[in-house]
């Protein structure tokens, strides 16, 4: 009952004109970045994070900028389907699976059906996930209140272990990326002893550390953009879609045919989204696979089946709420985008983690309320403005790319007012581009630079408590199972390899 009251208050707060306006603006920006091939929610959130300081200045709280960024995240999940269906190119990796059936349906002259099915499934997936989030989050946060330093460090170890065990990328390169991000986070003064560390070539600017945004904007604003410019193809044909009120009403009536895919995506997406390193992309791909497996007509998949559109679209929206759960309750992000959101919360003076629910209810509940509100806005804007987004998709990348470069450079300067950081950001961006060519995953490094400053003190305080005995992470009742699970995940690729060898 208390949850429902708090949620009601939160929704009312989210509906206040300023917050509502921000949610609307965030959804529109999110739809745009989601729809634009080469851009995704993480690019939008990372590049625009420095600009949220002005929102915080105006509103005087951290809730408003968070509502704006969370709305971008939501909008991007909807937007990805637009380019997947009309261009045949996923707007973001989260919408890859939408292409499988969305594009064939569009090519069959039913782009309107595909777009409306995607929007409705996204809405249902997002709403179901928000309800699950509302139910689980306070309970998980209250359990996490008992967590001490070893438990929190064990959870972080688990977050990194999932990247190694379930991430699907090259394992040594993933490990390198995690360790590199964690080392970068140690540059500057050691907060425990006060000693300077890793002040490269005695350049004094390193004493303030390497800020998270410098790496995140470098990777997603510069490196990814150059990668997209180099890999984008010119031979793209856009499928037109004409959406009127009658078309929307007709497709809403027909939507129940996609109930199975929507249900699978909504449930599976949420739970996959909770897992660090998993998130919306594997959530949508898995949901597509399960929907196909459970379908009475699996042969229709890949040829324009509505369940094949509904499952991944419901899943990517559901997963985006799922990824918020560990971030808000445990202070551990489940995806690169939530890592940026977590870093934003720290910048705005909040301490993410279990105490957030008990100490900052004025922040938490309006934010959760905004999830529901943003979801409704995203559906309405999506259905009403698809022709506008189709028009925007025609914007040449040679206009969008330089604007993003300018935004990245000026945004980094505005955040720290230090040109050295901007140089560093550009260098990271160019480095990220080279590493990307060689399949080095960079999301773990971004996650690591956020978690590093939290993980290191927890490890050191745990070892101080145990006189340097690492078994503290195995012998405590909560930390023990989490550490064992993390070790299993780290060893999982090795186990798979041995299993494959034994099977010949």
């Amino acid at each position, binding site marked *: 009952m208390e949850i429902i009251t708090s949620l009601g208050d939160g929704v009312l707060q989210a509906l206040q004109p300023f917050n509502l306006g921000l949610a609307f603006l965030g959804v529109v920006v999110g739809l745009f970045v989601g729809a634009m091939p080469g851009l995704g929610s993480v690019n939008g959130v990372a590049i625009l994070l420095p600009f949220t*300081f*002005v929102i915080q*200045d105006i509103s005087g709280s951290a809730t408003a900028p968070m509502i704006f960024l969370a709305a971008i995240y939501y909008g991007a999940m909807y937007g990805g389907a637009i380019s997947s269906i009309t261009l045949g190119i996923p707007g973001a990796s989260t919408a890859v699976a939408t292409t499988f059936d969305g594009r064939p349906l569009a090519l069959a002259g039913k782009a309107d059906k595909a777009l409306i099915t995607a929007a409705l499934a996204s809405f249902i997936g997002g709403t179901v996930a928000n309800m699950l989030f509302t139910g689980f989050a306070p309970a998980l946060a209250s359990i996490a209140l008992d967590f001490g330093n070893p438990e929190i460090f064990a959870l972080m170890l688990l977050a990194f272990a999932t990247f190694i065990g379930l991430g699907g990328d*090259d*394992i*040594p*390169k993933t*490990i*390198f990326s995690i*360790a*590199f991000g*964690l*080392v970068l986070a*140690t540059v500057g003064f*050691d907060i*425990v*002893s006060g*000693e*300077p*560390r*890793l002040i*490269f070539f005695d350049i004094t600017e390193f004493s303030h550390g390497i800020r998270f945004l410098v790496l995140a904007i470098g990777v997603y604003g*510069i490196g990814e953009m*150059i990668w997209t*410019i*180099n890999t984008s193809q010119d031979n793209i044909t856009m499928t037109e879609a004409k959406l009127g009120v009658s078309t929307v009403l007709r497709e809403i009536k027909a939507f129940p045919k996609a109930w199975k895919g929507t249900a699978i995506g909504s449930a599976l997406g949420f739970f996959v989204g909770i897992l660090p390193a998993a998130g919306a992309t594997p959530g949508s791909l898995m949901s597509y696979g399960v929907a196909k497996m459970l379908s009475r007509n699996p042969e229709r998949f890949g040829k324009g089946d509505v369940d094949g559109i509904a499952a991944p679209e419901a899943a990517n929206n559901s997963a985006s709420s799922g990824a918020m759960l560990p971030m808000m309750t445990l202070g551990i992000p489940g995806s690169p985008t939530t890592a940026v959101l977590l870093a934003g919360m720290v910048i705005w003076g909040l301490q993410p983690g279990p105490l957030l629910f008990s100490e900052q209810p004025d922040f938490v509940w309006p934010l959760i309320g905004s999830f529901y509100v943003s979801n409704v806005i995203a559906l309405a804007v999506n259905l009403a403005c698809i022709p506008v987004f189709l028009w925007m998709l025609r914007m*040449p990348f*040679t*206009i969008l*790319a*330089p*604007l993003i*470069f*300018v935004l990245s*450079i*000026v945004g980094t*300067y*505005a955040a720290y*007012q230090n*040109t050295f950081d*901007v*140089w560093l950001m*550009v260098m990271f*961006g*160019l480095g990220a*581009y*080279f*590493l990307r*060519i*060689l*399949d080095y995953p960079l999301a773990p490094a971004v996650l690591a630079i956020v978690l590093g400053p939290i993980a*290191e003190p927890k*490890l*050191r*305080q745990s*070892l*101080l408590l145990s006189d*340097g005995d690492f078994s503290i992470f195995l012998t405590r009742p909560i930390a023990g199972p989490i550490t064992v699970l993390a070790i299993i995940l780290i060893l999982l690729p090795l186990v798979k390899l041995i299993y494959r060898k034994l099977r010949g």
Partner: protein
Amino acid sequence: MRRAELVTAVLLGLLSIYLMWEAGEGPSWDPDSVRFANIGMIEDEGPGSGFWPFWLALVMLASCIWTGVNWWRRKTPASRSSVPFLTPHARAMLFQVGGSLIVFMGLTHVLGYYGAMFLFLIYYLRFLGRHSLGRTLSIAAGVPVFSFFFFDVAMRIVLPKGYLEPLFIPLYDIFL
């Protein structure tokens, strides 16, 4: 691509060794400190300041060696690939785009952010994008003007203006 994978692994391995060396350095205010004395447990203090970065850098080094082994065994797509690391098209794009970003940053020290932004947009839109002169000039002029009002005027974040500073003084008088 194959050679690039090995060269990158070696370079990153060397970076890891450098990071290990740097992590072991004691505080500058203590001339008696011994290198690597801070990478283990210190009595009554717990792990030293170099503990976390040193061992992580060692993990980085180990993963580079692992990548090297995978390269030798041709286990990764890059180690089997005969495609060049940078195709002529990619090299040209990198030079034009990445190079222009470095020039942009260099120009910020001379012409400030707004002047550099203006020239960068003209270069990118006109020469890389081949857009019309009208569109190029309207975007190249519009973006710095919008940015000035957003950052300097609305957010009160004064971006450096280099040698163009005197041109902005009348604007400061009006808007700030």
